[in-house]
């Protein structure tokens, strides 16, 4: 029996193709990119060995620093926004709407599946000032705030970016955390209520601690995505004004494909990889829990 389930020929047929494709198209290029970091040039001009030149350049490159900073800033702000809004939505579903939350859940989830490019272009128009004030501008001005062109300043662009990405994905985290909240035994909450815990205190001391694992899992998933942000930025602000909203992903893309610097592009990609792996590792440690068993 063991020997049958360990049949080598079957293993080769079942796992072989996937592993081969994955190795050739993902693993080998990853190593190859690491190799590029020691070279200068591109396919057309040819490559020359440059030692640690690219890393030295990265160390002194102001633009790379600001891209790294933007990546962190965006990652933290949007991840906190996504998980927080998701949690509030989940509380709304479980405690306020209760049995009748299915329709609202479905509705709020819808933007999750929309193409990012479509959503970004829509938000561009919502916050546009020409040819007419977009709907969002009109609403903001109706509240008595006159902002002007959101995309003319780095701060304004960042704000629209955050609002967009939270709007786009909060339904996703809402459902994710909602499923976690449903796992809390009804009796636990009921008995806490008997003991007089209501409102904020019930949330703070009973619901939040019991749902902490799913909050952490959401945070890991969220930060893993937001650190890699590309589509939203490219489609909404194109990294601008100037390079004010350029994350590492976009900076790498520009360096490699607009300026044809493969070596330096790979170095930036490697930095991004280190950041992604490092942050995930820190959160895993912090949570002391294996999210794959989740």
């Amino acid at each position, binding site marked *: 029996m063991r020997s049958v389930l360990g*049949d080598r020929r079957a293993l080769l047929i079942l796992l072989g193709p996937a*592993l081969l494709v994955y190795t050739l198209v993902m693993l080998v290029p*990853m190593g190859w990119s690491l190799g590029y970091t020691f070279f200068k040039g591109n396919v057309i001009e040819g490559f020359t060995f440059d030692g640690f030149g690219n890393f030295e350049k990265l160390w002194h490159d102001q633009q790379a620093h600001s891209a790294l900073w933007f990546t962190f800033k965006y990652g933290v702000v949007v991840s906190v926004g996504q998980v927080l809004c998701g949690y509030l939505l989940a509380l709304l579903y479980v*405690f306020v709407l209760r049995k009748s939350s299915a329709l609202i859940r479905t509705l709020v989830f819808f933007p999750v599946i929309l193409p990012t490019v479509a959503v970004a*272009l829509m938000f561009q128009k919502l916050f546009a000032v020409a040819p007419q004030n977009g709907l969002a501008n009109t609403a903001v001005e109706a509240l008595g705030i006159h902002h002007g062109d959101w995309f003319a300043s780095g701060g304004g662009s960042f704000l629209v970016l955050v609002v967009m990405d939270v709007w786009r994905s909060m339904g996703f985290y809402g*459902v994710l955390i909602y499923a976690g909240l449903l796992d809390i035994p009804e009796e636990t909450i009921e008995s806490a209520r008997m003991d007089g815990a*209501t409102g904020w205190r019930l949330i703070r001391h009973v619901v939040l601690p019991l749902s902490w694992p799913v909050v952490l899992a959401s945070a890991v998933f969220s930060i893993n995505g937001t650190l*890699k942000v590309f589509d939203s930025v490219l489609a909404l602000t194109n990294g601008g004004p100037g390079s004010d909203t350029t994350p590492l992903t976009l900076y790498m893309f520009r360096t490699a494909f607009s300026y044809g610097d493969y070596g330096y592009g790979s170095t930036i990609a490697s930095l*991004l990889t280190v950041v992604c792996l490092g942050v995930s590792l820190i959160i895993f440690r912090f949570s002391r829990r294996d999210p794959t068993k989740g």
Partner: protein
Amino acid sequence: MTDTLAAPPRVRPTRPPTAALPRRRHARRLVRNALVALLLVIEVTPLLWLLLSSFKTQSEFVDDPAWSLPKSWGLANYTEAWTTGHVALYIRNSLMATVPSLALIVLLGVAAGFALEVMVWRGRHQVLLAFLLGIMVPSQMILLPLFRIYFQTGLSGTLAPLIITYTAAGLPLTVFMMATYFRSIPREVFEAATLDGASVLKAFWKIAFPMVRNAVFTVGLVQFFFIWNDLLISLTFTTDDDLRTIQVGLLNFTGQYGETAYGPLFAAISINVIGALFLYLLINQRIIKGLTAGAVKG
């Protein structure tokens, strides 16, 4: 917030009903309705505005305020986006890249998930770890070498680079999700099958695959959205304008018309949203389950 989250009225055996209770309940219902209304406004208004605007003419965009309704409901913007704006071509390209990738991902990924979870062999954990790497490492790490390979092998002028890259990039999550689904099936099922004389391949094809058919559909759905909505890979590997996928085409839509053709642009975005809405209405519960399952497991 405190009020809305206060104890529900259902189980309160220790306290006799008082006069204050109905009023509190009334207030709570008011707050609840207000919250739902706010949520509806936030979610629906932008999309509704997008759809309404897609019927406006150029002069309405320039002269009328954003909140005005379109004066007529003709489909001129849509036909222009569809033909002159090449949306039809882009959607065709997207389909031609997505369908083969999806088929390959499911075929290879389900088999690999089975091999990794059900079969017994040394090195399983190392291979799983290698697949995990594919989930964590950003795609930027694979673009440059692949670009070079596709360029030098002459694949660049076709959709093949997209299909190959999507297939490989979709495998890690698929393998992980499928391994999780296979884990939920009792091992005895497969052991009994092999005891009865079935080979592993037969056990996979005749027993395991049918058992996870629903999961396969779910996984396929998740991958569909990843591929269909992808921008980074398609932007990198489509060097030819005629090979643009819908996302790349949409991104460059403004460029083709200059900054002024608002109507067709809104129509092009709307086509995307309406298409997604159709699919969503058809199988929304499946989509929600699939995407969130992928999240926790990923």
